[in-house]
C-alpha cells in the first residue's frame, strides 16, 4: 500500500482497516447512483447491441433476398438457354429429317403410282368363255347328225377346227400374260421394301422429335416452377448451384496446376529472351513474361469459347452476328495456335538449357561430360506438352463461367450466414452485458453488505416501532 494512503504509517494494519471502512462507507453512500450508472451502461450496451444486431439482420435479409433473386434469375436464364437449345435441336431435326418431306412425299407417291400401275397391269385376263365349249359341242352334234361326208359336216368340222385353233391361241396368250404378270409382281417387291424403309426412317425421326418434345415439356414445367418462385425450385437451384460451385472449383484447381506446369515449362527459357537479371518488384521479368503468355492463352481460350457460344461471359460477343463471331473464333484460334507453337519451342529450349547447365555442372565438378542416351524423349515430351497445354487451358473457360455464376450465389449465401452469426453474437454480447450489469450490482452490494445490514436492521426496528405506536393508539382509542 502506498504510504500516502496510510493515516498511521507506523501502523499499516490499522491504516488499512480505516481505509477499508472509509471505502465501504463511501461505496454505501454512492450505492444508488452507482447502481443506476452500472445498470445504465449495461442497458446502453444491450440496446446498442440489439440495434447493431437488427441492422445486421436487415442487411442479411436484403442480401438473402438479393441472392434469391439472382439464384432464380440465373435459374430462369439457364432454363431458357436449355429450352432454346432444345428448340434449336428440334429445328435441326425437323430441317434434317422432315425438311426433305416434300421430296420424300413425292418419292412415296411415285412408288405408290408405280405399284398401282403395275397392279393395273397384272389384272387377270379371263380364260376362254364357256360359249366356245358349247359351240364346239353343237358343231360336233351337227356333224354327227349330218354324217361325216356331207358338205355341211365338213364345213362344221372346219369351223370346229378353227375354233379349237383359236382357243389354243387364246390359251397360249393367257399363259404369256400370266408370266408377264408374275414378272411385274416380282418387280414390285423392291418398291415395297424401299417404301417400308422410307416409312421406317420417317417413324424414327418423328419418334426423336417426340422424345425432344417430352424433354421440352419437362423444361417448360421447370421454367414455370422457377417463374412462380416456389420454394421447391429455389431449393433445387441452390443444391445445383452448390454442386456446380464445388465441381467448378475442383476443376479450376486442376487447371491451376496445369497452368503451373505450363509456367515451369516456359519460365526458364523466357530468361533467354528477356534476360534473367531484370526484375519487376520481387519477381523476375522472365517469370512475369511467362505468366503474361499463359494469361493471354487463357484469355484467347475464353474468347474462343465465347465465340463458339459455349460460354456466355461476355454479352457483347454473344450479340455479334454469326459471321463476325466465326471470324473472331478463327482469330482467337490462330493466336492460340501461334502461342502453342512458341511454347513448344520454348519447352525445347528449356530442355537444351537444362542439358547445358547439367554439362557445366559436370565440367565444374571435374567429371567428363556425356549426354545420356534417350535424352530426346523428355525433350519431345516437353515440346508436346508445351503445344497441348495452351489448348487444354482453353477449356478453363467452362468451369470459370460456372465458378463465377455459382460463386456469386454461394458467396451471397455464405455472407448471409456470416451476418446471421454476427447478429446472433452481437445480441448475445448485449444480453451478456445486461446480465453482467445486474451481477455487478449484486457484487457491489456484497462489498457494502455490512452497512446494508445495519440499514436493514434500522429500518426494521423503525417499522416495528411505528407498528407498536399504531397498535397503542388503537388500544387507547378503543
Amino acid at each position, binding site marked *: 500500500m502506498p504510504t500516502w494512503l496510510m493515516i498511521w504509517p507506523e501502523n499499516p494494519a490499522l491504516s488499512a482497516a480505516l481505509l477499508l471502512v472509509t471505502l465501504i462507507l463511501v461505496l454505501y453512500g454512492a450505492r444508488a447512483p452507482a447502481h443506476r450508472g452500472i445498470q445504465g451502461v449495461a442497458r446502453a450496451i444491450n440496446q446498442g447491441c440489439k440495434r447493431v444486431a437488427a441492422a445486421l439482420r436487415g442487411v442479411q435479409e436484403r442480401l438473402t433476398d438479393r441472392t434469391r433473386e439472382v439464384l432464380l434469375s440465373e435459374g430462369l436464364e439457364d432454363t431458357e438457354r436449355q429450352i432454346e437449345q432444345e428448340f434449336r435441336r428440334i429445328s435441326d431435326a425437323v430441317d434434317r429429317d422432315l425438311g426433305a418431306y416434300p421430296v420424300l412425299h413425292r418419292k412415296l407417291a411415285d412408288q405408290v403410282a408405280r405399284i398401282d400401275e403395275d397392279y393395273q397391269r397384272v389384272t387377270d385376263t379371263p380364260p376362254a368363255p364357256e360359249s366356245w365349249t358349247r359351240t364346239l359341242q353343237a358343231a360336233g352334234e351337227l356333224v354327227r347328225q349330218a354324217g361325216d361326208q356331207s358338205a355341211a359336216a365338213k364345213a362344221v368340222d372346219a369351223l370346229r377346227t378353227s375354233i379349237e385353233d383359236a382357243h389354243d391361241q387364246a390359251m397360249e396368250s393367257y399363259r404369256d400374260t400370266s408370266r408377264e404378270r408374275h414378272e411385274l409382281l416380282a418387280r414390285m417387291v423392291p418398291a415395297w421394301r424401299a417404301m417400308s424403309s422410307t416409312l421406317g426412317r420417317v417413324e424414327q425421326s418423328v419418334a426423336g422429335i417426340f422424345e425432344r418434345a417430352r424433354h421440352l415439356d419437362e423444361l417448360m414445367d421447370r421454367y414455370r416452377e422457377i417463374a412462380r418462385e416456389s420454394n421447391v425450385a429455389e431449393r433445387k437451384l441452390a443444391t445445383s448451384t452448390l454442386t456446380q460451385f464445388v465441381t467448378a472449383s475442383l476443376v479450376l484447381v486442376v487447371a491451376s496446376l496445369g497452368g503451373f506446369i505450363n509456367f515451369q515449362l516456359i519460365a*526458364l527459357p523466357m*530468361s*533467354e529472351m528477356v*534476360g*534473367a*537479371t*531484370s*526484375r*519487376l*518488384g*520481387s*519477381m523476375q521479368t522472365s517469370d512475369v513474361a511467362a505468366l503474361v503468355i499463359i494469361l493471354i492463352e487463357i484469355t484467347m481460350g475464353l474468347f474462343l469459347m465465347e465465340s463458339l457460344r459455349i460460354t456466355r461471359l461476355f454479352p457483347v460477343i454473344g450479340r455479334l452476328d454469326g459471321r463476325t463471331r466465326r471470324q473472331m473464333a478463327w482469330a482467337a484460334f490462330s493466336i492460340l495456335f501461334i502461342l502453342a507453337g512458341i511454347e513448344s519451342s520454348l519447352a525445347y529450349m528449356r530442355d*537444351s*538449357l537444362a542439358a*547445358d*547447365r547439367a554439362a*557445366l*555442372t559436370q*565440367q*565444374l*565438378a*571435374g567429371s567428363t561430360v556425356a549426354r545420356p542416351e534417350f535424352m530426346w524423349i523428355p525433350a519431345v515430351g516437353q515440346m508436346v506438352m508445351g503445344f497441348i497445354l495452351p489448348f487444354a487451358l482453353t477449356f478453363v473457360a467452362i468451369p470459370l463461367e460456372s465458378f463465377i455464376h455459382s460463386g456469386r450465389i454461394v458467396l451471397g449465401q455464405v455472407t448471409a450466414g456470416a451476418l446471421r452469426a454476427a447478429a446472433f453474437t452481437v445480441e448475445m454480447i448485449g444480453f451478456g452485458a445486461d446480465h453482467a450489469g445486474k451481477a455487478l450490482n449484486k457484487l457491489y452490494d456484497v462489498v457494502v453488505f455490512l452497512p446494508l445490514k445495519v440499514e436493514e436492521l434500522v429500518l426494521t426496528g423503525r417499522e416495528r416501532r411505528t407498528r407498536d405506536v399504531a397498535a397503542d393508539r388503537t388500544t387507547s382509542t378503543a
Partner: protein
Amino acid sequence: MKRFNRLGSLVLAAVLALTGCSSTPPGTGVFLLLDTSGTYAGELDRARSVINYLLGTLDPGDSFGVARIDGGSFSEKDIIMRVTFDSRPSVANDQKRVFMEQVGAFTDTVTAAAHTDITGGVLQAAEWLEEVGPGRRTVLIFSDMEEDLPEGFIRDFPMELEGVRVIALNVTKLRPDNVDPRVYATRLDAWRDRVEAGGGEFTVINDLERLDVALEL
C-alpha cells in the same frame, strides 16, 4: 467517374506493391583473393574447387572476379579474371566455361610470391565491387591472413568497406600459431577490427563444406 478513380487508385497500389521499391539493387558480386605466397601456394587446388563451386552457384547477372595476392596486390595486373555474367543463361554458361579455363591455366602456372599484400587485394576487390554495384558484395580471401608487405608499402590506414562482407577462407595455422595459439586469434581479431572499422562484416570459414551456408548465395 468516382468508380474509375477508385479503380485507378487500386491499380496504382497494386503496381507499387508489385514493383515494391527496395533500396538494394539485385545481383551478387563476389571477388576472390588467392594468396600465392610461399607458405600458402600449396592450397591453390582447394581454391580451384571453391572457384568452381562459386561458378556453379552464381546466377546470370552476378559478378565474379579472381585476383592473386602477391607483393603489391593493389594493381590491375594481379586480376586473373573478372566478369559480370550475361543476363542470358546460355551465354552466362559459356562465360563460366571460359572463366574456369582461365583460372585453371593460372593455377597450373602460378609461381610463389615473395610477399603478401592482403590489404591491397581487399582494397582492389572493394573498388571493383563498388564499380560494378551489385546488391550483395562479398570479398573472399583464400589466405592464412598473415600480411607480409614489401619495404616501403603503406597499408596501415582505414579501409572503406561499407556493405562489404569479408570472408576469410581456409585460414591455415602457421608455425608460430602452433607455438602460441593466441597469435592466430590475435591475427584474426586484428583483421576483424580493421574490416568492421571500415563498415564491413568479417567472418572466418575454415570448413569449406559450410561454404554454401556461409555465403548465402
